[in-house]
């Protein structure tokens, strides 16, 4: 097995899918000749030509709509939002058209929207956001958010081969910082399955994407204090792997939900509601949330440092919860 970066894993998935299936094509801003703002599609334009790696005008709504039309015709488009933040411009096409086509009139719409998201990059309010919660209440969509190269590659392949619209949230901070082993040859990571990335017995930390690494950092410190964290990586946000969540809660009886979005109405709210409805008798203490505060993502280093959830926040929550 070769060790590759998170970004390289995404690139490999795209490259292999473009080769495997002629219906797959990429469109977005600067994805072609330039190779993408983060160089994810570098070299594809030369390899596959301008009609399979299509440079678009600045028209997020327009090219998302175009991807929908192509998908209806049996293509498997992969849209790149240059930054996940700009997905707001395409909100209507995603929630009104893509998500509802199959339900409303049987219009199967197999497409992927890649959305580079997340903070830690000093990007300010419009280059750092985690917009997954905006789409969390939209039946018909699927959403994934991998935390390591193995899942990044396997989930992207699964998303491209899936018959529904999938938003693929890839964390910008992880692109070149996280490396991991990726097997040779074709594999997929099925949608809808969470993964226990660290076994533990005292507290379940339910999280996804970059926050998985924050949780791992906290787990190391807490191990020294005799508190054992189990870390559940949701991987798929929509639909949630309820059984995967419940299995861990039954084991530890204590839950922290860790996520990078503003606190109110985040993924954590739904996970907490599910657990309190279905797992109440298994709980030994309150369900705690560790999240960003309810502000836009601020720019200045002390601000961003304050804004983003940190290992220390998880540690404090865990100490509080361990007392129950």
């Amino acid at each position, binding site marked *: 097995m070769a060790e590759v970066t998170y970004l390289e894993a995404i690139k490999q998935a795209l490259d292999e899918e473009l080769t495997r299936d002629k219906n797959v*094509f990429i469109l977005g801003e600067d994805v072609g000749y330039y190779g993408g703002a983060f160089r994810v599609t570098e070299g594809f334009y030369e390899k596959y030509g301008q*009609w*399979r790696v*299509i440079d*678009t*005008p600045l*028209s997020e*709504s*327009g*090219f*998302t*709509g*175009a*991807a*929908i*039309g*192509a*998908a*209806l*015709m*049996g*293509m498997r*488009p992969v849209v790149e939002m240059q930054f996940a933040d700009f997905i707001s411009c395409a909100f*209507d*096409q995603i929630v*009104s*058209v893509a998500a*509802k*086509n*199959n*339900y*409303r*009139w*049987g*219009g*199967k*719409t*197999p497409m992927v929207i890649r959305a580079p998201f997340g903070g830690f990059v000093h990007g300010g309010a419009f280059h750092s956001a985690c917009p997954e919660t905006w789409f969390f209440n939209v*039946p*018909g969509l*699927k959403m994934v958010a991998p935390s390591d190269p193995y899942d990044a590659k396997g989930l992207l392949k699964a998303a491209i081969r*899936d*018959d*529904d619209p999938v938003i693929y949230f890839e964390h910008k901070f992880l692109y070149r910082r996280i490396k991991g082993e990726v097997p040779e040859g074709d594999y997929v990571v099925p*949608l*809808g399955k969470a993964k226990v990335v660290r076994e533990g017995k005292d507290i379940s930390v339910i999280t996804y994407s970059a926050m998985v690494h924050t949780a791992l950092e906290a787990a190391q410190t807490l191990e020294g204090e005799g508190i054992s964290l189990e870390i559940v990586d949701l991987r*798929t946000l929509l*639909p949630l792997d309820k059984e995967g969540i419940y299995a861990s809660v039954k084991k530890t009886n204590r839950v922290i939900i860790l996520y990078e979005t503003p606190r109110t109405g985040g993924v954590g709210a739904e996970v907490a509601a599910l657990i309190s409805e279905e797992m109440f008798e298994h709980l030994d203490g309150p369900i705690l949330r560790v999240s960003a505060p309810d502000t836009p993502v601020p720019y200045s280093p002390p601000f961003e440092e304050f804004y983003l959830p940190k290992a220390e926040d998880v540690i404090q929550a865990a100490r509080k919860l361990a007392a129950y």
Partner: protein
Amino acid sequence: MDISKNDLLQLYYYLKLTRRIEDRVTALYRQGRILGGAWTSNGMEAISVGYAYALEKEDVIAPYFRDMGAFLVRGITPQRVMAQYLGKKTGITGGKEGNVHAGDIHLGIFGFPSHLADNYPVAVGAALSFKIRGERRVAAACTGEGGTSRGDFHEALNMASVWKVPVVFFCNNNQYAYSTPFRIQMAVKDVAERAKAYAIPSEIVDGNDVIAVYSAAKSAYDRARRGEGPTFIECKTMRMHGHSEHDAAKYVPRELLEEWKKKDPIMNMEKYLLASKKAMEEELKGIDGRVTKEIDEAEAFAEKSPLPEGREALEGVYATPV
């Protein structure tokens, strides 16, 4: 453009079928048997009948809500239309959607989203896939003049022109977006001027003349199939009813309606067919009788069709459930 007698009579048949099916829908709506809304294309039937009739079977359409004629031309049966309005399982969408909010991928009809002009970029994407795959198919999209003030309209025209894809855009300019008259929707004189900004050739046609719409559409489709890119066709007409049947449209000057009544597309087609001796009175009466019979049967079919079970609402959220 030389149009065969058979085609002329077919156009007439679809105009009549569209008018009468929507008249029936309006009657049922007023009786409280159709819930929700009833938007019709009364007085504007020539647009959707004309643009749809000029297409080939393998082409696709992205219609809007005054395009009943296009649904029928593409092969949606009157039975499915009536059942759709009554929310029945046998309706176009099996009860998932009502009225004209429908589509059928097997007939090359994209579902209509209420957000006007949303389907414009979708049609561009279908045309893009034809270009990528080297197919000779075209996509036709339609919206009202109201929808041409939305961003998706402009993004779609721009992309289509830059990519030179085989799509033809139609605009039903019926002079009112709900209650808002043209003059406070846009400062240009004709919607077609908007296409100039994107270097798309445009044409203005009499939207009440089905032959004019059909001919303009056919030429534009031919052009698209030759790889020469998109065309924009503005069809001038007048909305003769309210926005929906609940709306008395008191904001529309009566004189304007009186004037447009004289330009009724079906009356005009009848006059043309008879004056040019393309059809005899009896032939037109025969078509009329056929239409009445089909609609009566469709209504009966819809009435006796079952309603869906409430819990079936849970089905179909995903094409592939996880």
